[in-house]
């Protein structure tokens, strides 16, 4: 398990939806190793402001290229959105533990809330390559048409009902539940904490295994600063989101 820090050329950095940017970079060393659910730490400024790297899930991989989907929420992501094609950015990765795909899996449900959709296209591609039937659900506040093939065949849920199902993403899964095959099913979710809690409750009740990708503030991103604790479900200890996660079996941690 080696971690690389490479200066990677940006080959695309464009807005693909109201709140989503798509960044593609040439990163052969990371592309070779990375698997779905892992993340990279991107240096957004060469001049020390902001100081710390920013964590982003890998959303896409094709040969030596990796891609990220991100939302502008502050200075770091704002600066990232201004990087031009042809420039190089320092990317550290792959980091953390990603999603597990069990051998017996037949149907996978992928749930993304807001920018929590980010790790799911890469996961979906891997699942489909293995011949696993995948259903992807994406919830957002309002309609956000995506001009990106990464998002074909998605069930939308919007809070205002402007597109797809009206309600949250977990409710939209519930809405289709009777038609979803129950044999060897597993769910994967990434999004804001309230959504993950709703998913935890829903799939626990249905007795379906669930893996969640969680977020935390991070400094190092690889297990040395101890800045990213999450409460463990089975002991009084903390786990580290960057090292033990960011993907956890939903029964392992307390949200």
């Amino acid at each position, binding site marked *: 398990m080696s*971690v690389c820090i490479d200066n990677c050329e940006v080959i695309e950095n464009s807005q693909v939806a109201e709140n989503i940017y798509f960044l593609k970079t040439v990163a052969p060393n990371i592309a070779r190793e990375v698997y779905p659910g892992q993340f990279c730490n991107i240096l957004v400024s060469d001049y*020390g402001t902001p*100081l710390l790297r920013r964590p982003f899930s890998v959303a896409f991989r094709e040969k030596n290229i990796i891609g990220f989907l991100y939302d502008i929420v502050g200075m770091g992501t704002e600066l990232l959105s201004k990087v031009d094609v042809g420039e190089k950015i320092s990317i550290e990765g792959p980091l953390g533990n990603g999603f597990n795909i069990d051998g017996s899996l037949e149907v996978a449900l992928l749930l993304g809330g807001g920018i929590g959709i980010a790790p799911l296209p890469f996961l979906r591609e891997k699942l489909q390559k293995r011949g696993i039937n995948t259903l992807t659900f994406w919830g957002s506040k309002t309609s956000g048409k995506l001009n990106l093939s990464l998002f074909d065949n998605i069930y939308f849920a919007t809070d205002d009902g402007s597109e797809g199902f009206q309600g949250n993403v977990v409710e939209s899964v519930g809405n289709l539940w009777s038609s979803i095959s129950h044999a060897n099913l597993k769910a994967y979710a990434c999004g804001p904490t309230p959504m993950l809690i709703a998913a935890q409750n829903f799939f626990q009740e249905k007795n379906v295994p669930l893996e969640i990708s969680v977020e935390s*503030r991070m400094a190092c991103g690889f297990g040395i600063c101890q800045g990213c604790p999450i409460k463990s479900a089975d002991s009084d200890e903390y786990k580290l989101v960057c090292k033990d996660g960011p993907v956890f079996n939903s029964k392992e941690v307390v949200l």
Partner: protein
Amino acid sequence: MSDVNLSVKIGSLELKNPVMLASGTVGYGEEISRIVDLTQVGAIITKSISLEPRKGNPPERIWETSSGMLNAIGLANIGLKRFVDEKIPFLEKINTTVICNIAASSFDEYAECVKSLKDIETIKAFEINVSCPNVKDGGLLFGNDINAVREITSLLRPITDKPLIIKLSPNTASIKDFAQAVKEEGADAVSAINTLVGTAFNIYTRKPRIKNITGGLSGPAIKPVALAKVLEISRDVDIPVIGVGGISSWEDAAEFIIAGASAVQIGTANFVNPKISEEVIEGLRSYCTAMNISDINDLVASYTL
């Protein structure tokens, strides 16, 4: 002139170069060894160890500030026993100088820790954390009280022959008095500085950004403060100083050495660039070559005021 001497001595501790990795910013070496060649650094200083494991503070533990970060990790560590059983075997293998940092919440605990670890060959020196501001019943109390710091040093000195480095808190009126006190009690060196106490609020929820309310400020923001503390000690007290605080480049390291540091530690910068130590070592070498300095020790406290 590529044969610049970068090796330094801190008391009886010989280092191949003056660049160390600071406690709490390299864990126990394992994770960072996947990114950086630890055999190249002068020394690594392990995360503060206490007698019993500590699970640390609840989140949020960190918050980024202008050119720096606040942390209130709460000295989360695996405790002395697991450190010896699980981490020492790894540290033994990596062929680098290991300095063991110790934190405690009582005088007895400090003594107990040093007693249990003093015969471990891999540990070449002890750095005593008297100044961690994070744990309510520990850090602040000792680090701010000159008598307590003096007592800890005098208690530990007879226990081990290995170099004893006292890591000083900047959150005091006169750091040089602390340096003088530990020198009188037989410490081999001081590290300066640990983090500065700071806080930050969310103006909408009006709550602190860090669960612990206050945290320790580190990173480039504290460099001028750390540099002034190093200078203050080096001007008045005859004890080796290890400079730490905001070092993010070889230029920063050179500045500390000129201000009186015999060696330096890199902390927060490891998070941003885990390979920073290699760059600092190479940078110092080139700088010495360019400046016609054949021995880095000639640079120590070479300021003109």
